[in-house]
């Protein structure tokens, strides 16, 4: 019976393949370095942020989740996204007196901010109807207002949280329709006044924000957030560790 000519080379190829695989595995193992402390810290930070989110999702309060990485601002309740706003610009500001900056409050990214206050406040005029007991003299129900009419939103506003952080929300462009009281004065005097007011707010303790997180939103989004943000909405700023 003729001997199979391909026998020995096939076996040799198999052995060579196995050896090569072993060598590659050994090389890969040798090259695998232990994780750097920075990588461990970044991972720990991610876990910490997840834990914060889980804590908020377990509660009954509404909360805002500001993700610095994905540039999104989400209105959440129990882990469910109710509304997602895309952030166009994101900055943080600290008070500065005579060119001297102050440091942001320690651990500001490691906490959940609560007890918010809208500045300027969202006013709601409730109409009150007093029943007369007589169908012929009952007042006609008023013409219902649109949300834009009921809650006119300023182009720029702040959500100030207890503890010193303020979310400074800015519209990308000034809204087309605004009552005069909410219009931004773009004249030189108006700008100067705004400048002085800004400086004043730094100098007066009650008005000072220890840290401002400024977000620029689409004009409709900024207005929508102002109108519809539920009272008591908390805030968590997701600042991820560098390199994570």
């Amino acid at each position, binding site marked *: 019976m003729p001997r199979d000519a391909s026998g020995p080379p096939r076996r040799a190829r198999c052995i060579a393949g196995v050896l090569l695989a072993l060598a590659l595995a050994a090389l890969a193992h040798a090259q695998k370095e*232990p*994780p*750097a*402390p*920075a990588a*461990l810290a970044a*991972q*720990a*930070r991610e*876990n910490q942020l*997840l*834990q914060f989110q889980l804590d908020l999702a377990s509660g*009954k309060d509404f909360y805002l989740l500001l993700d610095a990485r994905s540039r999104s601002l989400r209105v959440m*309740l*129990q*882990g*469910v996204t*109710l*509304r997602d706003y895309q952030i166009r610009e*994101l*900055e*943080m*500001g*600290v008070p*500065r*007196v*005579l*060119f001297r*900056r102050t440091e942001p409050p320690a651990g500001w*990214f*490691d906490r959940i901010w609560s007890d918010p206050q809208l500045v300027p406040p969202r006013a*709601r005029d409730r*109409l*009150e*109807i*007093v*029943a*007369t*007991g*007589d*169908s*012929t*003299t*009952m007042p006609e*129900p008023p013409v*219902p207002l*649109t*949300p834009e009419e*009921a*809650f006119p939103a300023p182009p720029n506003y702040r959500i100030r949280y207890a503890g010193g952080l303020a979310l400074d929300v800015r519209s990308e462009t000034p809204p087309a329709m605004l009552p005069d009281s909410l219009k931004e004065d773009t004249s030189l005097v108006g700008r100067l006044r705004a400048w*002085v007011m*800004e*400086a004043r707010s*730094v*100098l007066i303790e009650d008005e000072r924000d220890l840290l401002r997180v400024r977000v620029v939103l689409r004009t409709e989004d900024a207005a*929508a957030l102002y109108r*519809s943000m*539920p009272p008591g909405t908390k805030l968590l700023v997701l*600042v991820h*560790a560098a390199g994570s």
Partner: protein
Amino acid sequence: MAAWVPDRRSLSPAPPPAQPPAPPRNPLPPITTPVPPARTLRRIPLRREEPRPRRRVLGWLIAILAVLILAVGLAAVALAGTGYAYRGLAGTTPPAPLKPSSVTPEKQMAQLRGEQKKLQTALAKRIPPGTYVVIDQTHNRVYLKKGEEITLEAVCSAGSGLVLRESAAGGRKWVFDTPRGSFKVIQRRENPVWKKPDWAFVEEGKPIPKNDSDRFEYGMLGEYALSFGDGYMMHGTLYERLLGRSVTHGCIRIGRDDLRVVWRECPLGTRIFIY
């Protein structure tokens, strides 16, 4: 009449001038200090004194102006340096919340990753598995969502926010707000009949019926009603032209076609989130 007699003394010739003292016998050259001519001495002070008051005032004015300019400049510089200094968040690196551990970094990383998976799973479990409803009561919008995907966006009507008082003297008071928070569909009804509550009669200025059968109204709630507690419902409406406006007594009114989708997609227990 007495004749005028001139006074002789006044007419007498003036006495001769006194003779200067005789020069000393041994004359030395006199020590003389150069004295400017009398004319110069008299005129120079006059020229200097005349414009002095004006120049002094001008000088003061310039000084005050300079101080003012300096003060304004300093204030402007101070103002420019006072306010809020902004920078990107990208440079903000939080300190590592890593606890010292005796295990190797590889093991530590494996533990952290395991913990991360657990947290992610727990967080994902918070999102309702099927369809859920999100209602923006301010903008009168209702959304059906599956996960993060929006499967329906519809116009609705939410609470008007009106306050109704039973009488001027007091009595009961109702606030027609839609509640905010998390709810569940607890009852589904086809062709629902509305059992009018007291406020519906008070609002119309009608007496509150004593008999329950006088409270029933047919067709007001549309084809379907999905209750989510405390008398609040998602239901249809006869007044579709008012959709998009806050006109209800707290319920969510939805147009006929959209309500059919909501009815089909939302079984009992469906989560409703209203903000």
